[in-house]
């Protein structure tokens, strides 16, 4: 509705003379104001008592709970020797373990190998699948149901099949590990690949980026924090996979799963617990390794935040 008239004549501003080429050049050439507006301060790591006392307190509660459990179970200790039958108290954990030490060490190494190999294969297959799924919606929609099924299917049901194809041995154990560790890698990688910002995609489009360039320079690097979250979840799962696989496919030298089963059947609670604790330590080692690696790779640029810090 408004009729807008441009100003009739250009107001002459006496105070601003026509610029000369020199002025223009000088204006552009002078390094523009030295910037340091409000750059975020560098975070300084400070010692906090809570960082030490918190974990210590939780550990104390854990040990106390363990004692309470061991002594509250009826007939937990052999009436003659005092040997723990079901749950050893924390100080009894090494009861009779010394005799079988080489066997347990060997089993631990084997389980570590199974888990590491299975995890490596799961990472390769899982990231490959996620990349494939990120490229077209129909691929994503087509593959999801099978991945979820794979995650939900009881390994027990696959045992005959695996024995038939791969044998009752190490190979089948690795495959069980892959099956169990695969899903978090696919789902986290895919989530990361699809999380790139629309404007960043536009930027790549405007500059003629190919599918591959987009993947390698935008989507994959941006996905790394999520990818490592997946790796860390799968790190723990891979140990579970190796132990379960070991339990089902018992031919060849035993891993921790086979030993846990044997000691369980013989009421050798301390030995069984040592094996279980070693499995947990393996899982923690893998987890910490991927945490460290992830931090090396994305720590420089990724910003995790907590309220009030």
């Amino acid at each position: 509705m408004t009729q807008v008239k441009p100003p009739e004549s250009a107001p002459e501003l006496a105070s601003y003379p026509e610029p000369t080429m020199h002025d223009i050049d000088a204006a552009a050439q002078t390094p523009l104001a030295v910037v340091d507006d409000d750059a975020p301060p560098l975070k300084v790591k400070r010692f906090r008592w809570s960082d030490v006392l918190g974990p210590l307190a939780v550990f104390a509660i854990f040990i106390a709970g363990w004692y309470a459990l061991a002594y509250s179970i009826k007939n937990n200790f052999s009436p003659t020797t005092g040997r723990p039958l079901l749950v050893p108290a924390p100080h009894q954990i090494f009861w009779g373990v010394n005799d079988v030490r080489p066997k347990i060490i060997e089993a631990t190494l084997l389980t570590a190998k199974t888990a590491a190999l299975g995890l490596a294969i799961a990472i390769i297959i899982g990231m490959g699948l996620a990349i494939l799924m990120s490229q077209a919606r129909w691929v994503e929609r087509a593959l999801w149901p099978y991945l979820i099924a794979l995650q939900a299917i009881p390994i027990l049901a696959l045992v005959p099949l695996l024995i038939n194809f791969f044998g009752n041995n190490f190979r089948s154990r690795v495959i069980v590990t892959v099956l169990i560790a695969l899903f978090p890698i696919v789902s986290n990688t895919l989530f990361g690949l699809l999380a790139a910002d629309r404007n960043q995609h536009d930027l790549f489009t405007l500059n003629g980026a190919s599918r591959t360039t987009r993947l390698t320079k935008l989507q994959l690097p941006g996905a790394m924090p999520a990818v490592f979250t997946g790796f860390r979840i799968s790190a723990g799962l891979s140990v579970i996979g190796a132990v379960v696989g070991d339990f089902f496919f018992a031919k060849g030298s035993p891993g921790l799963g086979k030993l846990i089963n044997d000691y369980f059947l013989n009421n050798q609670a301390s030995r069984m617990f040592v094996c279980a604790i070693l499995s947990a330590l393996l899982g923690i080692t893998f987890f910490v390794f991927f945490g460290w690696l992830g931090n090396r790779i994305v720590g420089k640029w990724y910003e995790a935040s907590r309220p009030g810090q």
Partner: protein
Amino acid sequence: MSGTLSFEGVSMTFADGTQALSAVSFDVSPGEFVTVVGPSGCGKSTLLRNASGLTEPSRGKVKVDRKSIGYVFQDATLLPWRTVEANVGLLAELQGFSRSDRAAKVRAAIDLVGLTGHEQKYPKQLSGGMKMRASLARSLVMKPKVWLFDEPFGALDEITRERLNDELLSLFNHEGFAALFITHSIYEAVFLSTRVLVMSARPGRIVGDFKVPFAFPRPHDLRFEPEFADLCGQVSAALRGAHA
């Protein structure tokens, strides 16, 4: 007269039936700095997306050499895993310039926007203003003939924004590109432009067209001159009319 960038009767209707633009026509020639102001949601960004070729208009034509376009987004869109230096070199890298070809261009662009000394920092270590400078430098590397700006300084505080306005103008004087700038700040529009277009609420139409006569280089204090205030008043009146 047709310029480096021409809109010829451009209309845009989205798939859901929303009409974003209605018969928009104007030209931007080299050395011209055209700013579009309008209420939010009036289709200003759609205008830029059409100009850049990210979307095609439903009717009408946009004429521009798509190879020489620079696009500065509302947020800096830096890649957080790249240092300032690597971010500034990104577009040249995508367009296939070799590492050695890029180095000098990147160096020059970083110097020109005043980020010298911050080359190895990651975006998380930069302030909003510095991020935007890096974003400008990234575009600058490609020496665009037509530079599109989608409210680039909208999220910055007033002081940083004024400073970046001053610096953008000195870049404009130096490089002589054609600029199409979107903003909802009248003062920013008048300060930067040779021409201000006022857009109506959706569907966006051009309802006001002002020549901005102030000579370049424009000193910081131009903002406090009565002639400047007067022109801002006129643009504001047009904008209110457009909103009604």
